[in-house]
């Protein structure tokens, strides 16, 4: 078999694999099905090109590859949609704070929102599979941090966290600073001693 045909066969195998599974596959997982000499990366870029203008597209999510219906067809696909629970504003805000500020502690989320997080807000996000506990912060009390999951990226069609909308602008404008600005207004402690406390943090 000529090289071209071999490459073509490998591309077809990768295509079939990715088409068959609903779970995104990593390059390593694909290699498990392929002969060692196969160039999976080349096969993937060939496929990505081939599906550029089609009703289905090949997307990368957190380093894993998967076919998805083309996003521009959204309005035309009147398929039975998964029931979408309307998230509360609190949950949406909390999710975006976790996404843009991760890893972030609950206290930091509360600082940014200027309000204590009601019971159930994080629960809803965890249940949706979009956030999970990250490492504990190396700080007094070792508070737990929260991070987003691969399902979050998958759900919002993001290749990685770096693709969050407007992330670079937010970074540049300094708005991804998690520090306390108005702690005095947000705690019931002594209103006028708080400014000096800030330096301890």
């Amino acid at each position, binding site marked *: 078999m000529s090289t071209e045909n071999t490459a073509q066969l490998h591309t077809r195998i990768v295509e079939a694999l990715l088409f068959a599974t609903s779970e995104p596959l990593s390059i390593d997982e694909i290699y498990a099905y392929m002969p060692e000499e196969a160039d999976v990366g080349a096969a993937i870029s060939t496929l990505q090109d081939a599906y550029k203008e089609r009703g289905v597209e090949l997307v990368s999510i957190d380093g894993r590859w998967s076919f998805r*219906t083309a996003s521009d067809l959204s309005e035309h696909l009147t398929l039975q949609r998964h029931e979408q629970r309307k998230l509360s504003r609190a949950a949406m805000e909390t999710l975006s704070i976790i996404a843009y500020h991760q890893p972030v502690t609950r206290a930091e989320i509360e600082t*940014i929102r200027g309000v204590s997080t009601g019971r159930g807000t994080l629960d809803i996000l965890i249940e949706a599979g979009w956030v999970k506990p990250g490492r504990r912060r190396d700080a007094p009390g070792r508070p737990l941090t929260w991070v987003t999951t691969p399902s979050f990226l998958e759900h919002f069609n993001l290749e990685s966290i770096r693709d969050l909308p407007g992330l670079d602008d937010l970074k540049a404008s300094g708005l991804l600073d998690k520090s306390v600005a108005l702690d005095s207004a947000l705690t019931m402690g002594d209103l006028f001693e708080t400014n000096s406390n800030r330096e301890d943090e």
Partner: protein
Amino acid sequence: MNDNQNTDINEDNLFSDDDGQQFNLDLEGYEGPIDMLLDLARKQKVDLIHISVLDLARQYLNFIKQAKDLKLDLAAEYLVMAAWLAYLKSRLLLPKDETDEGELSGEEMAAALQFQLRRLEAMQDAADQLFSRPQLGWDVFDRGMGFDLRTKTEATYDASLYELLECYGSINRRHNASQYRPLDLNLMSMDEAMDKLKNAFKDLPRKGQHSAWLTLQSLIDKHEKDRIFSRSSLASMFTAGLEMAKYGDCEIRQDAPLRPIYMRAKIKEEQQA
């Protein structure tokens, strides 16, 4: 605290009684004082960077006053914010007190508030942007008929030559075992040995209570061809000797290891008599 800060209520005419009612309903939708301040700021339709923090503080305090007049239950954080804003307002309006060392100036406090508002606004906008993206299972769909990929296990077997040979040996053993017959050996019984030993002692000359010594080996027929019988004779005779010695009927002697074993009969009192 808040009651002392009623100075600007009438000066700010932004909110009629009707608006106050509206606000009353809206309060339910606020996620906290910062969220409410942000909403007030947005209503001014000015970029947050250029917003008048003083105006904002006035409006907020106005709201709180109206809410109190309506006997609305306000969460503590709204009251704390009102106090903080009242303080901010006074800092902004009054001349700087040089003795207030280590405290933020009114301008710094205003900047902090502004940052807080801009940061929350950024996150709210980000949430809107995030949720306006195509979402999986809503706008974008994954493979409906996905199947789990099959796994075929190919076994490789391992065995050593030893195992192979051992197995073959065991088959042969098993095979022979099915035809096994006990060997029919000609052996000297204990009874027979005992009789022979006693007879041999009888023929020996006596001195006092003892017979003369004899060697164990002299008891064995040297012409016996059956070696197994010879050996069993030796063993049985020796055992018979030990048995007699146990009852005091004989004595056994060996001068050194591997030297000949001597035996003699011992005649008891009543036998002598």
